[in-house]
């Protein structure tokens, strides 16, 4: 009876006969809820950590990808320009070859003239010997 009267006044006794404002059942549930919430929070923070690290990782990967992409674009451009470079080099080499050819021709003429000169001198020597 007294319990009921107390209950009406909003007072309860728990198992340890301590006076309580809340009903023991609700109190227990509240405590349980509290526990669960804490657990939930812990899990959430853990999740947060994992997500953070994941995002970091993804960012890294993204950066790498971006870099690689740029590299790829760069090398593609380079590759494209190689043809051009080749052409330029070819032109350069061609110019050098032409130059060499001109020089060769010059030297050939000089060689020919020396040969001719040698021939003339040999003829002269022969003639000289015959005359004696």
């Amino acid at each position, binding site marked *: 009876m007294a319990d009921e009267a107390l209950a009406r006044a909003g007072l309860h006794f728990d198992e340890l006969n301590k006076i309580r404002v809340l009903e023991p059942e609700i109190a227990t549930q509240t405590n349980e809820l509290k526990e669960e919430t804490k657990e939930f929070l812990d899990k959430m923070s853990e999740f947060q950590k994992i997500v953070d690290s994941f995002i970091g990782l993804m960012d890294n990967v993204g950066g790498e990808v971006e870099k690689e992409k740029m590299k790829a674009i760069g090398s593609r451009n*380079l590759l494209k320009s190689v043809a051009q*470079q080749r052409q330029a*080099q070819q*032109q*350069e*080499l061609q*110019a*050098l070859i032409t*130059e*060499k050819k*001109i*020089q060769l*021709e*010059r*030297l*050939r*003429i*000089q060689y020919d*003239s*020396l040969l001719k*000169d040698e021939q*003339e*001198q040999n003829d*002269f020597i022969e003639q000289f010997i015959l*005359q004696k």
Partner: protein
Amino acid sequence: MKLKSTLQKQPKHQELVSSVGWTNPDEVYSASDDHQLKSTLQKQPKHQELVSSVGWTNPDEVYSASDDHQVLKWNILNNESTGFWPNCRKMSIRPTCIGSLKEYQGRNKAQMCLCCLLQMSDAYCISTYLGFLNYQSLCKFLLISRTGRVEKSVEAHRGAVLSVKWSYTGSELLTAGEDGQVKIWSRSGMLRATLAQNSSPVYSVMWGPDSDQVLYTQGRQLVIKPVQATAKPNTWRAHDGVILKVDWNPVNNLILSAAEDCKYKVWDNYGRLMYSSNTHDYPITSVSWSPDGELFVIGSFNTLRLCDQTGWSHSLEKPNTGSLFNIAWSSDSTQIAGACGNGQVLFSHVIEKRLEWRNFELLITGRKTIDVRNVNNEAREKLDFRDRIIKVSLAYHHMVVATSSQCYIYSVKNWNTPMIFDLKEGSVTLIRQSEKHFLLVDSSSIYVYTYEGRLVSSPKFVGMRMDILNHHTVSLSDDTIAIRDKNDEKTVNLFETSNGKPLGDGKPFQHSTEIMEIALDQCGLPSERRMTIVDRNRDLYLTQVRVYGNNRKSLKLGTMIQSLVWNDETNMLVALNNGRFTVWYYPNAIYVDNDVLSKTVMTRDASEFGKKPHLLSFIGKQVAIRRAEGSVISTTISPYPSMLHDCVNHNRWDDAVRLCRFVKEDSLWACLAVMAAYAKELSTAEVAYAAIDETDKVQFIQNIKELSRKEARNAEMALFCGQEADGEAILLQSGLIFRAIIINIQLYNWNSVEMARRMKGEQRQRQVERCGPGDRQAGTVLSRWAGMETDWQELT
């Protein structure tokens, strides 16, 4: 930024090149003939933007100006650069060109260098009117001393100043700008004259050799304008594209032009085309003459080409420089600096110059090394020098090497112990050699040394200019130095080699027209020294050196002479004239017997030498000829004339006659005849003249032989050689006055009768009346002297 990225690609580019078997450019060029360039570039460009101009102040110091508002000073010795004149950056000035003032004849020592930078201020405002740009700003040129102090800042042009040049005396400055004006300024920055006003920019200007004319570009045309306001300019269309650069060399007086039509051309000072190059791949952006006028370089995109003064290319280089906007030579003609489009400054020096003399071949392999090869025994010598080699000459058994501080003299017999002496100035511009002496020309004086290294003399005359002397205008023999005067090109100054004093009466030799080339013969007695002169009409004259006043005779030996050389050991002369190859075995014949001269000459067709050949040397019996496209052709002349010279020089007349009998050639007999007549060797002359069927001369000589007195014979021989004055002088000197009179009478030279009158009375009163029976004119004259007695006993 873009430029930078291309530079980062550079190493890759080189890898690509090496993959086709190319390791370094030097190897590629090692097979090149004569000259080539060895270039160095910095690993990283020191300038951030294109280099617009370079300039030398002395052979170790270069200034470069770039669009990145920087002027750098480069030290060639350690290849380091330092910032010069930092205000450039502070004021954000864009220097467009540099005109560096070198020392001229040692006069400007105090103010050794004035670096002239032209500014295109960044603050200039551009407003667009109907699609064309209007430069509002006045652009300045700045005179900056070597210490970096701005001495003068002068507003010069509207729009950028594109070209600036100091005159050769260093007293005037020439500028050209985008506004199409060409202006002359005094040293202190006062405007002297505005030479031209064009509608289009003038990209390049240059002084003429005497600083009295100016060459500038006008679109596709070149204009030579005299500095005097009234004189008419000479304008000609030179290229099919806009002309970008011109240069005019004072030594050879040739003009170079480079244009957007990808060609470079060489012109003479009248605007006649001497050479036109093939079309290149890119526009030619720069040209520059070497100060000695022997070489020039052209620059284009990734291209540097070294050419001979006649236009053909010595070597081609493909450095990674971008366009070469400006090229400058150092004053000693051995190094160049190039302003590159990619911010680099290119440095090159000329190597692989090849010299030959008899069995020795000499190759300058590096800046400080020479390889000498004896072809006969394949002995090789490697000569190292302390300093940079500037000039080398090899002739007459000696090699003379001038470095930037010393002169080395080697004998070809001994390559180990040269004679060495210090040079006063390190800028030798010319070396000439003779049998016993050699001559050095530097920027202040001419020095003559013996091969022992002893200074013999240093000839001087008023108005001597060293910077334009070349091997055409200076000639040296063992006893005489000849230097053509620059102020009056008709005169040649002659000096005694041994003491440097003017010859004889001290008066220079005068010719009727401008002289282009002079050359002295090398052998024989000093009194018989002869000099050849090629004048403006390309006529060849032979003149006596040691005959003075009116007696000196210049006789015309040939016409249309392209090139000529004296032999080094006999007085033979070889020339290319009008498509013929001509050898004068004995040029002196023109003074002895002009009729026979043509027989002493060997001439043949020169078509095998191509167009415009040029004689290089005439050593022994070997003639070397350079064809227009650069190849060297050697040809040999008959050995007999030099043998004959040898016999005659040693007075072995019998041997000479025997030689001629053996050879049986008219030319040789003719030479002998003339030589004998000149030496008054009557019997030899008689034989020789008989051999070439000159009956009248044989008879004359026989008559002379019958004369008993030596003087009389000599006089008659002088007459025979056409030297009446000499003959008369001989006779008068030895007292044979009557004979002198008769000679004059025979020559119908009646004035000389007066001379006879002046003679001593008693001699005059001799024997004249009966001397010329049958000769009517003589008779009439003699009748005037009637009553004179004749003493035939005294007559001989």
